[in-house]
């Protein structure tokens, strides 16, 4: 009886998990998707409680209580910190998979008939993926949170890629040896765990901040795949299905991120992007034109279409609310305001949309790069706030630039471009931006929050004078 109950619950849960992702295709139905996911998870957990042989309810209750006590506060983080939270979640997912694999391996040492070649192979895969996701995600979270003892800039050393791949191959080799001799060579198991933990750290060390969106997506995929491997170990189809959904989602997001930067997976993982380029600067002699808040406000007032290009700098300066006020001032004057969102704006896929939604910008004003670029030549003013590489025209023509080929938002094609920037320091990728020296570009130097605040004040006083 319980067999059918458990399997039935798992079957319904699988369907609901698919529907949860399906409903994410539209913001209108997305919350329904969350509900569907919650119901599915509840069914899966209740179904599992019916599994025969569960006696230690104390262990379960304690662990569930700890999970809730940690999980609830973790959902209150500010939205700028969502990438870190996501990375930590990946770490927990990897840890859970790794620990279950470890527990199963040692349990089955007592009943070696269970350690079939397939199972041992699946355990090795689960443990390698789980533990490398664990340390890798912790490193990524540390880099995103800018923890002191984790270097922000990529760390590179000679033979880095060779030694990293060597480590991974060694771990896989130990895994294959275990497949043939799961009991006699059991001492190799801790070696695999250690190598996977070490590999996770070394994998993330050479990766720079600009690549974080891709890396988070990749780790998402690994966390899903470790759940799939767990499904193979435990002969559990629900685990395989849910893990595969997570894995494919992470894969798609990584592909989107890579395309948005015109880079390949191997390039992201083994490229060590993000060091400051030491190009002998002819650029040094060029000067950018400055504009005051007053002048900029007048220019904005006369426009009929304004496109705002937000970058992570906007979030760092906490300028979202000011941007919202600017949006209100401009729309009051019947000026069409749109936001141009580059796929890699922010620190994880879709991050910028969430940050602007939090500031109450209606989501139909958040336009993807491919849809906004054809409108750029008809745009009167482009306002770049804290974005840099994603508007650098060098990506289109300068073959020596590290970002050559990356799709960009065509801010330089608008009639006029205003760029807010703290100083002329190069951006995240360490590349000088030609846009700032273009004829039609005017710079507004200062903290994004302060500058946008000034613009709003100018518009407010100008508006009242006109009335």
């Amino acid at each position, binding site marked *: 009886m319980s*067999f059918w109950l458990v399997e039935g619950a798992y079957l319904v849960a699988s369907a609901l*998990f*698919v529907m949860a992702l*399906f409903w*994410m*295709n*539209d*913001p209108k139905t*997305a919350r329904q998707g*969350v509900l569907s996911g919650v119901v599915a998870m509840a069914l899966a957990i209740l179904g*599992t409680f019916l*599994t*025969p042989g*569960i*006696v*230690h309810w104390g262990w*379960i209750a304690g*662990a569930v209580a*700890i*999970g*809730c006590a*940690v*999980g609830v506060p973790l*959902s209150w*983080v500010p*939205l700028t910190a*969502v990438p870190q*939270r996501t990375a930590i*979640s990946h770490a927990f*997912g990897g840890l*859970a998979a790794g*620990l*279950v694999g470890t*527990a199963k391996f040692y349990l089955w040492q007592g009943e070696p008939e269970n350690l079939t070649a*397939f199972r041992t192979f699946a355990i090795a895969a689960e443990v390698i993926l789980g533990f490398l996701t664990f340390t890798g995600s912790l490193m990524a979270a540390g880099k995103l949170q800018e923890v002191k003892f984790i270097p922000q800039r990529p760390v590179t050393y000679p033979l880095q890629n060779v030694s990293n791949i060597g480590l991974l191959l060694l771990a896989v080799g130990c895994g294959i040896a275990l497949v043939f001799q799961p009991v006699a060579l059991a001492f190799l198991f801790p070696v695999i765990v250690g190598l996977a933990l070490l590999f996770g750290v070394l994998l993330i060390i050479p990766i720079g901040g600009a690549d974080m969106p891709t890396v988070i997506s990749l780790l*998402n995929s690994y*966390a899903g795949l470790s*759940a*799939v491997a*767990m499904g*193979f170990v*435990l*002969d559990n189809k629900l*685990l395989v*299905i849910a893990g595969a*959904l*997570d*894995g*494919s989602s992470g894969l798609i*997001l990584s592909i*989107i991120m890579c395309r948005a930067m015109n880079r390949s997976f191997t390039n992201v993982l083994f490229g060590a992007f993000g060091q400051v380029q030491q190009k002998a600067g002819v650029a040094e002699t060029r000067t950018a034109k400055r504009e005051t808040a007053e002048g900029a406000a007048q220019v904005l007032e006369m426009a009929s279409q304004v496109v705002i290009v937000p970058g992570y700098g906007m979030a760092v300066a906490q300028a979202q609310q000011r941007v919202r006020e600017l949006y209100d001032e401009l*729309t009051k004057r019947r000026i069409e305001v749109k936001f141009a*969102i580059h796929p890699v704006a922010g620190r*994880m896929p*879709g991050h910028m949309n*969430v940050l602007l*939604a939090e500031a*109450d910008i*209606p*989501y139909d004003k958040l336009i993807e790069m491919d849809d906004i670029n054809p409108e750029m030549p008809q745009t009167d003013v482009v306002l770049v706030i804290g974005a840099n590489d994603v508007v650098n025209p060098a990506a289109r023509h300068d073959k020596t630039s590290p970002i050559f080929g990356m799709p960009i938002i065509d801010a330089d094609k608008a009639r006029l471009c205003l760029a807010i920037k703290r100083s002329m320091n190069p951006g995240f990728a360490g590349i000088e931006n030609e846009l700032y020296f273009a004829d039609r570009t005017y710079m507004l130097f200062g903290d994004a929050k302060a500058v946008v605040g000034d613009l709003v004040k100018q518009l407010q006083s100008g508006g009242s004078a006109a009335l």
Partner: protein
Amino acid sequence: MDLGAGSVQNRPVMPCAPLLAAATAQPTATAEGGSPAEFTALLFVFLLATFIGLGVVTRVSRLLHTPLMSLTNAISAIAVVGSIVIAGQDHAPLVNLLGAIALAASMTNIVSGFLITDRMLRLFKKPGGDKRP
């Protein structure tokens, strides 16, 4: 072929004995689990689920990629299923401890993943300039 026949023999031979039914209710521990047939069946499930996942996720609005990731995060915490069994069954305490840590980690992901996804999705206001007071 005979592999399939073997697994049929293993399962519903005893419709009347509830004790035996309870034993077969946990196919993981029987010799049937981990067999090549079982493994390839799971491979098929994996393959199809991946294709469904790819199909469904490519349709997800780009607006919602951050909530998508936190939602899939919560979904992949389905590892909770494996953790519960290991934490709850009668094993050496150390094994139970491993299971309990895994369970706490998965539970954290479930709780925080669903909560933060919903919190983010509530921010996406319907178009049409409705302003909050």
